[in-house]
């Protein structure tokens, strides 16, 4: 059957992109503007330096179907300041989020909170008479899990970094490949039988 048009029946799932971008004013704005303009919802976006001067690295998580993910990648490449994009969603990768959680903990409940933190391998980074600041690194699931058990004690404040990702193994994308083939991975024409 010929391919069908219109909205894809495929369900949107979180896709993770790693993008190397030039460290210039306005680049974050260009990336964010692209997602806004094309109505791709950003779940999370993080930016930081790389070990190469002038190059920043972004990890972007967006909830889209596979075909839209391909167009997100192609649209990112169209930005002049974007050097390299990798969709690592289906590549074995280490994905981490970091959260700082200020949780109510008085003399009575402190021991219980500390015990929970220990189970989740979260670190206590500040102690005050009425509260603790807990640092946890891990997948979103793990952080959600900790939040769930801390909630009854009273969460006073929380900050999260959003996801950062790195593929496993020795493979690293070069910042600046000479040539990126214009691949259209979603072509699956079943050719007519000869």
């Amino acid at each position, binding site marked *: 059957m010929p*391919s069908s048009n219109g909205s894809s029946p495929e369900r949107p799932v979180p896709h993770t992109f790693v993008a190397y971008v*030039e460290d210039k004013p306005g680049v974050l704005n260009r990336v964010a503007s692209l997602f806004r303009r094309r109505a791709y919802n950003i779940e999370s976006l993080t930016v930081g330096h790389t070990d190469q001067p002038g190059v920043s690295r972004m990890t972007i998580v967006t909830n889209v179907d596979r075909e839209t993910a391909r167009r997100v990648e192609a649209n990112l490449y169209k930005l002049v300041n974007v050097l390299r994009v990798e969709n690592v969603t289906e590549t074995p990768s280490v994905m981490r989020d970091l959260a700082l959680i200020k949780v109510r903990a008085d003399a009575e409940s402190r021991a219980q909170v500390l015990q929970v933190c220990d189970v989740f391998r979260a670190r206590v980074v500040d102690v005050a008479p009425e509260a603790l600041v807990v640092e946890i690194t891990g997948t979103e699931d793990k952080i959600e899990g900790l939040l769930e058990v801390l909630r009854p004690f009273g969460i006073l404040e929380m900050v999260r970094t959003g996801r950062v990702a790195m593929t496993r193994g020795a493979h690293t994308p070069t910042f600046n490949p000479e040539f990126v083939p214009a691949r259209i991975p979603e072509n699956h024409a079943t050719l007519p039988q000869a």
Partner: protein
Amino acid sequence: MKRTGAQIVWEVLTREGVEVVFGYPGGAILPTYDAMLDYPIRHVLTRHEQGAAHMADGYARASGKVGVAMATSGPGATNLVTGIATAMMDSSPIVCITGQVASSAIGSDAFQETDVTGVTLPITKHNYLVTRAEDVAPALREAFYIARSGRPGPVLVDITKDAQYTETDFEWDDSPVRLPGYRPDLRALPEEFERAAELIRSAERPLILAGHGVVMSGAMQELLAFVQKTQIPVALTLLGLGALPASHPLNLGMMGMHGEAWVNTAIQEADLLLAFGMRFDDRVTGNLATYAPKARKIHVDIDPTEINKNVKVDVGIVGDLGATLRQLLPVLPAMEHKPWINHIEELKGDSAVRDIQNMPDSGHLYAAHVIHDLWRITGGEALIVTDVGQHQMWEAQYYRHEQPRTLITSGGLGTMGFALPAAVGARFGRPQDEVWVIVGDGGFQMTQAELATCRQEDIKINIAIINNGYLGMVRQWQEFFYGRRYAATPLVNPDFVKLAEAHGLTGLRVERRDQVQEVVQQAREDPGTVVIDFRVEKEDSVYPMVPAGADLDAMIRRPNPIVETAQSGD
């Protein structure tokens, strides 16, 4: 050598081969205007910055070169916005240079300060804020390179006033522009060609959809060779008109909302669509869910983001169209599709006898008459610039374009007011050609101030106002879809003949069909710009019409007999 940033602007423009700049001066761009007097580039003073952007666009589309517009900061820059968005939607290569307040004042809400790089970010291919004189040359060189390469588009360079007046060392760097993140020369993988060839070889009812990409790639010869060898009929988009000569036997005509009925029917019946440099705009597909349901699709485009955007395709080939066709053609055998072509001939049937021949020739003036006669009188060889609306569709239907770049029109954005300034730009892009503006009475009034530019710059264009006293296309939608409730569409117009005369130009009026030939000839012989006020049938509509979002073959056809509503000679 020492140069100010302002001088460097002109040094770079000169070396980029710029012949003419369309612009409007103001405080923040004054240093650059001052330096202009020492350089051999012509400046065209517009009456509004929107005109400058459209002129640069018209120049680019007529010549294939990069057009340049210049404006001051704040309102000057924001007035460019409509023109930039127009160029973006139709992939037209223009460079806009704007002045900006001094770098020390940025962010302070200074007089005439606007964050124009922020404003234009989503409507430019790329933009620059230049705050140092030494960055002027690299930014401008990159701007020209980005504007014309890959899928062309507008680039804006915003230069602070201090960057313009500061002196710096200037050495022209003519090495190729190197932008590590910009790779316009994408190439398809070989297996894509093989899959495309396989689909083409086995198709029985194939159809080529040719768009603006054919013209911009300069792939007319390649398309012609492809059509000759494969004998596949061709349908054109609005911006593709001229990509294949209208007289070619396999050129079926325009597709889409106001396309030929047999073209839209053929698309719905085809078993293979070859989309060459077009982007399946909603105005050509109608309802996506029912679009070309029997067809496999091959899509060739230079922009990878266009593949599978609106229509899911079986093979997507990313690359320059001319290069792609040169690679594809040798692996295809010579073919024939006689039954399919005969079938399309049958589809034409009675409708091949054009609507125009069914119109009563009672002396009443129809827009179709005007455009058909204009086509005959100019031998189909004029460069036509149209605005947006009914006249635009009638032009596309009744003026038969044999050559590429002989129709300039705002396709994607549909910008009323585009025609007159774009024609001024086209005049400079193609000084030898006869230029005609075909414009509605509504759109003309949006940018009619540029008549003064025509006078001041002493240029010759002919302006045909298709005057029906309505915002005609909106009125047509109100007639069809809003129960003839004509909200805000009737126009009380100025006397366009007197308006032309007030500008020191010739104004003429045509009210009957038998006057068309003589008046058009009179306009052609006049050395200056001429405005012709064609008083056409007031409530005529464009047929056929696919209502927005309807199935492509669900067309509203011209009623018979035609009801005339105008009083001739009023």
